[in-house]
């Protein structure tokens, strides 16, 4: 998947991941929610794969599965070609160092009792190759790498702006020397004018170090700037996937179209190619046993057939897959 070059082994690969949670609805009733439903992707060095979707679509669960903080119920995550549960002790340590995360909200992702310097030192704890003094020097280098003054090491999270903290968040993720970073909406808590700063920093780092990113975002501008491959998720399922250029220029699934329209909103006048599609209502959990399209009550084009047939993810154009029979049959 992606623009797979056969001689390149993906750093991280997810195959048919499934994760279910038991949710207590009331004292007596418990239901099973499938948070991630047979999701597959692979990330090559130096490449960004984007997951796009709204809250409850399973993006964060996918992140936790790839970081190894949750065991999948089915399917598997492979690190450098080897399934996570088959890693030796040493490989596991290398995996822990190689796979890092940048959080959505810079204000809650830092220990309020620890200074920035202490936080970064803490993030270097797995770097056994460095002495205490070398670690301190590394903290200064990390701060400079993300464009902050070394003096900021003395500050506490509450004394910094959101944009600065998010740079520290990037520095923290870099500290163990990763090859893969899970970016969980890295800019959605930031002002528009500083989003570009953080994204450009991430792009530079990717170029320098060949980092692989798994980017979760609903800002399609960010997705377009960063990612080569995109998966559009809804209620744990991939509804559409393909290269970013292809999917954003020719969105096929009504859900993707509505997301695109919602990002641009009033600016649509300047983007005539995008269609003004609106899905209705709220995210609805699916009734147990339901097999049809997960968007069935919200889609403006819904028909009887959508509810009755399970929808398969199938190729609509080369490298562009969609889970919608209407699109697949009519090609619209």
């Amino acid at each position: 998947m992606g623009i797979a070059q056969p001689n390149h082994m993906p750093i991280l690969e997810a195959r048919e991941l499934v994760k279910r949670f038991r949710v207590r609805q009331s004292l007596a009733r418990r239901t099973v929610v499938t948070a991630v439903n047979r999701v597959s992707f692979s990330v090559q060095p130096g490449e960004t794969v984007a997951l796009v979707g709204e809250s409850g679509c399973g993006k964060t669960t996918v992140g936790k599965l790839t970081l190894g903080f949750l065991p999948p119920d089915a399917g598997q995550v492979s690190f450098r070609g080897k399934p996570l549960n088959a890693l030796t002790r040493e490989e596991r340590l290398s995996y822990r160092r190689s796979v890092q995360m940048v959080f959505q909200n810079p204000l809650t992702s830092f220990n309020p009792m620890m200074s920035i310097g202490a936080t970064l030192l803490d993030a270097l704890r797995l770097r056994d190759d460095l002495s205490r003094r070398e670690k301190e020097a590394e903290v200064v280098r990390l701060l400079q790498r993300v464009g902050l003054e070394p003096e900021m090491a003395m500050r506490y999270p509450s004394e910094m702006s959101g944009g600065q903290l998010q740079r520290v968040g990037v520095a923290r993720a870099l500290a163990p020397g990763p090859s893969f970073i899970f970016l969980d909406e890295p800019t959605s808590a930031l002002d528009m004018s500083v989003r570009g700063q953080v994204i450009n920093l991430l792009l530079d780092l990717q170029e320098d170090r060949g980092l692989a990113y798994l980017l979760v975002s609903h800002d399609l501008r960010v997705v377009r700037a960063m990612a080569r491959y995109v998966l559009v998720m809804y209620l744990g399922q991939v509804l559409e996937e393909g290269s970013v250029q292809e999917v954003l220029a020719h969105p096929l699934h009504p859900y993707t179209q509505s997301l695109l329209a919602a990002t641009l909103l009033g600016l649509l006048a300047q983007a005539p190619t995008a269609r003004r599609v609106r899905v209705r209502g709220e995210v609805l959990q699916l009734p147990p046993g339901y097999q049809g399209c997960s968007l069935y009550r919200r889609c403006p084009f819904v028909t009887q057939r959508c509810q009755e047939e399970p929808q398969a993810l199938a190729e609509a154009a080369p490298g562009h897959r969609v889970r919608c029979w209407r699109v697949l049959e009519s090609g619209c």
Partner: protein
Amino acid sequence: MSEETLLQVRELRAVVGPREQPVHAVRGVSFHVRRGARVGVIGESGSGKSMTALCILRLLPPTGVIRGGEVLYDGQDLLRLPESHLQRLRGREISLIFQNAASALNPLFPVGQQIADVYRHHVGTSPREAWDRAVSMLDAMGIPDAPRRARAYPHQYSGGMAQRAMIAMALICSPRLLIADEPTTGLDLTIQAQVLDLIQEQVERSGTSLILISHDIAVIAEVCNEVVVMYAGEVVESGPLSEVLQSPAHPYTRALLDCFEPKEGRRLPHIPGRVPQLYEEPAGCAFLSRCPQAREECREAHPSPVEIAPGHRVACHIVRGS
């Protein structure tokens, strides 16, 4: 003040923070809202846009103080009105919608009852009548099965539903002015689009004037027909939406709009630095430190707004010079 102006804000000034070292959050803000107009206020966090809205209704936080200016609503200055009088206006004639709707609703009472209470308080009808009115409002807001949902409590509402309920509460007395402060921030994209549609539709139908505060130009472009661009407590540019979008004049407006519509290519545009927190009034332009075109005069003199096209006003030395 002309017949068709509903609200005129003139030279509004306010500070916030500790008394020894307050931040000048609103510094001489002037703009007006015509009857039926939909005015968008855009700015980054720290630009003073929410503070301006709170000043209009005199709802500043305890550390905030209005230092001057006037807010003429229908010819009367809201800043000098007795509190009791203002209380009658709030909710009845001027309504406010906050960002976080779920926390603005009281968790102990059913949503429908809270909406009905607002109506009863201002209009003085029977509880029965108020309840019916609340249910029909919720229904108009697109809440499915409104009679049943009205009896539900806030925690049983999703974020989008709660925001719809807030809009119902804000509009139940048919106010003449609705101030919506980031009404869709934090909502999912598809929900955001629906809520904006709803606000626009309701405002248009009842002829209510709207002040929509947002950091997202796409949101404002969707709903509004006029726009006010704020930076560091000042209005730097204002005018008809299409005019400002197509030919932004202030360097800040241009830079901000660039951030929303990146050109092709891997790197995203941004504005270096951040909005300054002003503990003192600057002598020159507040955007100076981030402006790519700053000149000597920008450092020395404060730019005052000039009209560069009908209704399109810009406060910038460079624009005036050219």
